[in-house]
């Protein structure tokens, strides 16, 4: 049974079709990259999975259960976590409190109290290397630190599926490598499926993803193992004929 299954989901805004009959299956512990230019429907797809949008057609399944009609917070309780394209920290709260929110309301919700949540938070803050920043207001972090904080916050939810939206944009290549290594480690240790969505940074995709899905104009164009997908002629064409590695 697939961890997540999209069955021909479609989402329209007015006359525009943002996501058009996309089907997708993700297994437990998979590392997947979703690639596509701006406006190709990637973010809408994430919103459909995390429950911010309800699809006009098609169904969404998680661990075999139809979650199409579930609100976002219930999907989070089941184990779907995500980060945002532009970081959205709870700015006035400290890093520690931010991450603790994840622990309190994720899959552990109802099982742990505030004090345990703090301990969980500390662990993930340390994992992403933000311990020195722990008591700073999240709004005062640098953009890169905010991204790391968001990842820690999402991981503290102890999810089964982590959706990352442009998590590595604006990062130094060295940091990207570090983060990729870190994500792989988390996947290995906790068995989380991680989906990373990127527009440009192919380095991350190549380094991390085992499988790549390419989106174009709301449709799924290619869904294949990384090397094969990136070599696909149609994918090369989207990016104006340039080899993907350079974009």
């Amino acid at each position, binding site marked *: 049974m697939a961890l997540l299954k999209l069955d021909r989901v479609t989402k329209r805004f007015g006359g525009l079709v943002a996501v058009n009959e996309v089907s997708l299956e993700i297994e437990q512990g998979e590392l997947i990259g979703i690639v596509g230019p701006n406006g190709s429907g990637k973010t809408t797809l994430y919103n459909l999975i*995390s429950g911010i949008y309800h699809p006009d057609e098609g169904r969404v399944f998680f661990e075999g259960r139809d979650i199409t009609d579930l609100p976002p917070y219930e999907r989070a309780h089941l184990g779907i976590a995500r980060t945002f394209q532009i970081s*959205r920290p709870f700015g006035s709260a400290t890093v520690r409190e931010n991450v603790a929110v994840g622990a309190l*309301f994720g899959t552990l919700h109802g099982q742990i109290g505030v004090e345990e949540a703090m301990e969980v938070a500390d662990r993930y803050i340390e994992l992403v290397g933000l311990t020195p920043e722990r008591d700073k207001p999240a709004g005062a972090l640098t953009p890169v630190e905010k991204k790391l904080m968001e990842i820690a916050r999402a991981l503290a939810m102890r999810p089964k599926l982590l959706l990352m939206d442009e998590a590595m944009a604006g990062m130094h290549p060295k940091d990207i490598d570090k983060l990729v290594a870190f994500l792989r480690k988390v996947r290995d240790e906790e068995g989380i499926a991680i989906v990373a969505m990127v527009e440009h940074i192919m380095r991350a995709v190549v380094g991390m993803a085992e499988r790549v899905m390419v989106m174009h104009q709301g449709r799924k164009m290619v869904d294949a193992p990384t090397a094969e997908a990136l070599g696909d002629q149609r994918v090369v064409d989207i990016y104006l004929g340039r080899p993907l590695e350079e974009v």
Partner: protein
Amino acid sequence: MTRGATKYLPLLPVYLIYLVLFLVAEGMPGMWQLMAMLVFYCAVGQAFNIFLGMTGYVNFGYVAFLALGTYGMALSIYHFHQLPLGVGIVLLGLLLAVVMAVLLALMVGAVALRLGGAYFAIATIGVNEGFRYLIEGTKIWGGSEGIIFSKQLLDTFGREVANKLSTFWADVSVLIIAALAALITLHFIRGKTGYALMALREDEEAAKVMGINVTKYKLIAFVTSAALAGLIGAMAWGLKLTYVFPPEAFDISYTVEGIIIVMLGGAGTLLGPVVGGLLYGLAKYWLTVILPGFQLLIFAPIIIVVVVAFPEGIVGMLRQRLKGTPFEPFVL
């Protein structure tokens, strides 16, 4: 000190303020009613803060809950004073006040809490005004003439006790309600609810995908705040004044005073509404004496300066200053 006890340290300054107010009122002749006014503002600030301060949503119709509380007390004493309940009639009034306030909160919450901020503010104004005109238009609860129940109070309790209820116990009850509100606020801030409210105040959509049932937590805060307002209305306006007229009870200016108190003191903090209520009440009292007629002209620019330059309020600023000092655990 144990962790459990440390948790309650921030209550210390709040309760200290209330204790001092009570002692001054008891000890100095002629100060009781002034203290009662200050406590009223603190209590309103605290009750309001639980929703407005902690969620960031503006409930412009907040005074409707105070009004319903007042009606709860009025209806109880006016209609049931012949029942052999004794002081129980006041308790019945409180019960009625809370029940009516909570029912309205649930009804309004179900409709309005799904709305965005500006729409929510307008909707709540609509609830407040609409409710008032419903009472006047259908002539329920005495219609526009309201209810005066001094006589029923006198008949039930006799002169001495009735006077004591209106001029002493009503005020003491507001003090107790204020203390209760502080305890609830602390419990919220330090608990899971506080984290949920903080998250949804900062970013509602992000809070949703983090697993927070935002509607549920907004409703919790809304209903709690409404219930406390109902209690305050029942005591500070009902039992204390022994009458209720719709245009006064639904007067929107009290909502605005509540917002100002919360903003001045520090939205979402525990100590803020108390400090805000004290300052606002005292300033109002003294301006009344020194510059009658100019209070509003002085207050309005202050409001603008506060919201533009110090949106975190007095206690919010104080917390920044006290970070790392021994006072830190006391200020929340």
